[in-house]
């Protein structure tokens, strides 16, 4: 209530007038009322009423925050966070080695960035995740939908059909092995058509369309509340060419990252971005580093780098707040993303009795 007038989100001209007229706190504004306000500053009664409504909304928001209200507040104890994290699911990648180094899979409410040279498998992993996010809870998935924002045009529906068919077959095998009621019921809705119709695809041709789409995402997500994954395939592509003003690019990228973090937290979903690699020319040698510069490195919480080693594909966990840095091998088969040696069928997806969705944390093998 003691909020300074200069900090209220009103139109700048109006704010300047209020300050010039001598108003200092929001409390004074509310006490004056719309008619008095319009007479003192010389604005119409409707404008005064609008301004007062904005002020009232702000003050209510402040009061709720200070009283420790549930939804809008961003403050809670670490114990509550721990319980939340343990109850949260992961999006598995069907490659158990990769899931292990990620601590269970792609985490919700976090931004994961995948960097790699062209052709190494980034889009494949994104398509795999878009299918895996829809796995029903009794099989260990999060039963959500997926939003796929494509800037490079490398999304192939035929490939998604292959991956989804393999995933459905995998779940069918598990259901047959265990013969449980809820497994069979979940399988009825988990089919190829339902998987494909829950992947929402946007094709953005340049950075303006990408920005516009991210601005509109919150509205889209409130209509489709079951979305648990947002994939942006190729966040570097529209920003890498045709940008003379690098400071504008940094500002737009930072704004984009902030909005994605807000979306990830508010709607409890995972955001996966793919980035390209660029060559940094050092004194004597050149190294491949993720594109978009140093400041972009702070945007993602978890960073995976895919690279080649002769003919074997490797994935390195480069940055993560809770897991240590390690490298694993993976394979891309006609069924999608897989381990180098096929793992045992039943062990990966079933969970403990405590929480059917969360897989047990295993000790690192090496």
């Amino acid at each position, binding site marked *: 209530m003691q909020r300074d007038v200069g900090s209220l989100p009103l139109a700048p001209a109006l704010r300047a007038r209020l300050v010039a007229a001598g108003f200092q706190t929001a409390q004074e504004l509310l006490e004056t009322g719309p008619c008095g306000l319009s007479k003192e500053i010389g604005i119409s009664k409707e404008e005064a009423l609008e301004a007062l409504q904005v002020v009232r909304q702000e003050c209510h928001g402040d009061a709720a925050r200070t009283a420790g209200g549930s939804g809008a507040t961003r403050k809670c104890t670490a114990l509550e966070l721990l319980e939340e994290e343990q109850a949260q699911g992961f999006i598995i990648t069907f490659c158990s080695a990769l899931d292990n180094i990620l601590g269970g899979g792609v985490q919700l409410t976090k931004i994961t960035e995948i960097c790699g040279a062209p052709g190494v498998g980034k889009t494949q992993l994104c398509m795999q995740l878009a299918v895996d996010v829809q796995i029903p809870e009794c099989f260990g998935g999060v039963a959500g939908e997926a939003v796929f924002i494509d800037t490079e045009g490398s999304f192939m529906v035929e490939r*998604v059909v292959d991956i989804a068919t393999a995933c459905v077959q995998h779940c069918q095998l598990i259901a047959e092995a265990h013969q449980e009621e809820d497994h069979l019921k979940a399988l009825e809705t988990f089919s190829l058509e339902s998987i494909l119709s829950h992947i929402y695809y946007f094709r953005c*041709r340049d950075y303006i369309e990408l920005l516009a789409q991210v601005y509109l995402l919150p509205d889209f997500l409130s209509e489709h509340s079951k979305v648990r994954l947002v994939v942006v395939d190729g966040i570097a592509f529209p920003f*890498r060419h045709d940008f003379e003003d690098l400071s504008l690019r940094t500002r737009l990228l930072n704004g984009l990252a902030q909005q994605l973090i807000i979306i990830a937290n508010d709607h409890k979903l995972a955001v996966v971005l793919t980035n390209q690699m660029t060559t940094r020319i050092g004194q004597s040698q050149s190294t491949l580093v993720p594109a978009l510069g140093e400041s972009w490195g702070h945007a993602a919480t978890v960073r995976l780098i895919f690279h080649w080693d002769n003919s074997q594909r490797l994935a390195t966990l480069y940055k993560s707040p809770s897991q240590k840095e390690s490298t694993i091998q993976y394979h891309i088969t006609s069924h999608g993303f897989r381990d180098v040696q096929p793992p045992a069928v039943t062990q990966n997806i079933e969970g403990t009795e405590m929480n059917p969705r969360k897989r047990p944390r295993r000790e690192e093998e090496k």
Partner: protein
Amino acid sequence: MAAKKLRRAKLSQELCERLSRHQITTCQDFLCLSLLELMKVTGQSYYNVQKLLRKVSRACAPKMQTAYEMKLRKSVNPSSAFLSTTLHSLDKVLHGGVPCGSLTEITSPPGCGKTQFCIMVSVLATLPVSMGGLDGAVIYIDTESAFSAERLIEIAGNRFPTYFDSDEKLFCMTRSIHLYRELTCGSVLKRIMSLEEEIISKKVKLIVIDSVASVVRKEFDTKLQGNLAERSNFLARGASVLKYLAEEFSIPV
């Protein structure tokens, strides 16, 4: 899309005039500004500016389609999804042939047969659909002057002797292959930019560029400092226009 004028994004007239005084006329300018700058420029409150932002975004944002709709669309017209190369093992590996609607790149050391492949694919594209072709014209952008019309006729005559049995059919085919000789990067880029109208007017069903690397390597020496950025700029711009053309018209490039 980005250059869309704000007037067409359904903003009010006075707001558009006010913004144009600050040199903001297109959606691109509007979306590039931060929220505080927008408040200053439009003179509106925070919440109103957010509403405006959403309105402008809606004018620029792409349409949503589910993967299922995409699959249905492709399965309705299966023959148009690929251009078969008539080499069975290659077609099998490529899942049907050269995909329509995306870029395909062919690389190899010199002398392996890239230009021959391009010439053969051009012939295939002019064949009618019943024979596995696309029944359309071909735009061939040649930067090495390696295209030989005689070789084209030789391939057509020997490969499909039953179809090209008369000279008239051969002439018809050669008439539908439009060859452009471009020798510098700038002219290649200009040619790519101007392709959109030509594709519609000539009913083009295939674009071949032979080759991208030769003209780029001639002009940009990577040892010089600034050239690397300029070269990648040129390549990226060309690539994005080609991708747009491929997707928009569903043709292979």
